[in-house]
């Protein structure tokens, strides 16, 4: 996983699943990155891959997400894991999106990955667009916004 260059998405495919991962070195405190990732109503302001995100990002919460990958579709997702400033997982029966934050010397090592799959995956795999570009954009937007907040004068 660590071999993936920062900011660049990579996808691993098998017959029954597909997993896309992106990493970024963000020069901001993990709590700023966490704040950005957990304030649902603010998402579409800074994240150009999200059309809308409603609901509450908290332990056991549910959200409705509209992504630029398919603006007509609303993904109804459950918050599966919520470990402040460390790990956030949301998803549905098809798969899960995992956000990991690790405090580093210069700020935060951020990783986002999503694995989708299941026994029927081969039937619809060709209809699911690639996530790579969207993941890279997501990570770039997050980095830009978090660093902007970090650098804001006291």
């Amino acid at each position, binding site marked *: 996983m660590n071999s993936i260059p920062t900011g660049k998405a990579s996808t691993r495919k098998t017959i029954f699943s597909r997993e896309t991962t992106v990493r970024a070195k963000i020069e*901001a*405190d*993990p*709590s*700023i990155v966490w*704040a*950005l990732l957990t*304030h649902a*109503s*603010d998402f579409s*302001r800074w994240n150009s891959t999200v059309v809308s995100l409603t609901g509450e990002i908290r332990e056991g919460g549910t959200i409705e997400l509209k992504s630029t990958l398919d603006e007509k579709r609303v993904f109804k997702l459950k918050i599966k894991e919520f470990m402040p400033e460390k790990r956030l997982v949301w998803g549905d029966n098809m798969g899960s999106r995992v956000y990991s934050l690790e405090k580093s010397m210069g700020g935060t090592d951020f990783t986002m990955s999503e694995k989708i799959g299941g026994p029927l995956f081969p039937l619809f795999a060709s209809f699911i667009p690639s996530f790579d570009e969207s993941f890279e954009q997501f990570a770039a937007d997050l980095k830009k916004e978090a660093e*902007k*907040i*970090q650098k*804001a004068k*006291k």
Partner: protein
Amino acid sequence: MTTDQLAIEFENFQGELKSFLLRITASVQDAEDIVQETYIKASTKINTFRGESSLKTWVFRIGSNLAMDQLRSRKRWPDTVTDICREESLKNPQFFKEAMNIRQTSPQGNFEIKEHIAFCFTCVSKTLPLEQHLALLLKEVYGFKLREIAEILKQSEAMVKYYLHVSRNQMIDIFDQRCSLINKQGICHQCTELNGIFNPKQKAQEELAKIEMARDAEDKSKEELFDLRMKILQELDPFESGAADLQLYHLEHNRKVMEKYLGETK
């Protein structure tokens, strides 16, 4: 610190605390009640004050907690608050009758555009999520430092930075879209409209020329215009100004309208 020392120190910032609480609650009664409760709570807990922060920060923390306890279950206001309240006031002749009476009889019944700008911010800022609202006022109007705001809100400094960034941007966007004083395409003209009603002999343009934010709107960035708007709030005490009675009456009206609109009428 003793309760006697607290009483003396409290006096020094009581006015700021009260105006802060008014701007949070939009209610004179609630602001006054919370100031009183804050003092009582501070007196009973004064032995726990260790001097790790300033007394003012410690007291603002108590006041903020009390205000947040009261407001947490309440809905936030929509960004069209001033439109909704304007419509309601136009349907209510009693509102203008009473407002005109205050204008003519109260020593604090003047109408000044500058004061209305501050009043307008109080209403519009209630669209922000609660913690962001408090953080923004504490920083931009009452001059607290990040570390102190983090202490008051029991949050990390980084989270406060996030609150300030988001709330500031949201306010800048709302005023940029709405306020005709800073944007010719702005849809809200209420301050000049009301100035025409309460000060019929005054020329609005002459009055606006006295307000830096309006006068220099074309030459300044959105950020700078927001800072100038905050400067107006910093310089005004909503309880002591020459327009206090009129503005507080108007604020009370708007709060009641919003409570009804949001289905929160007691």
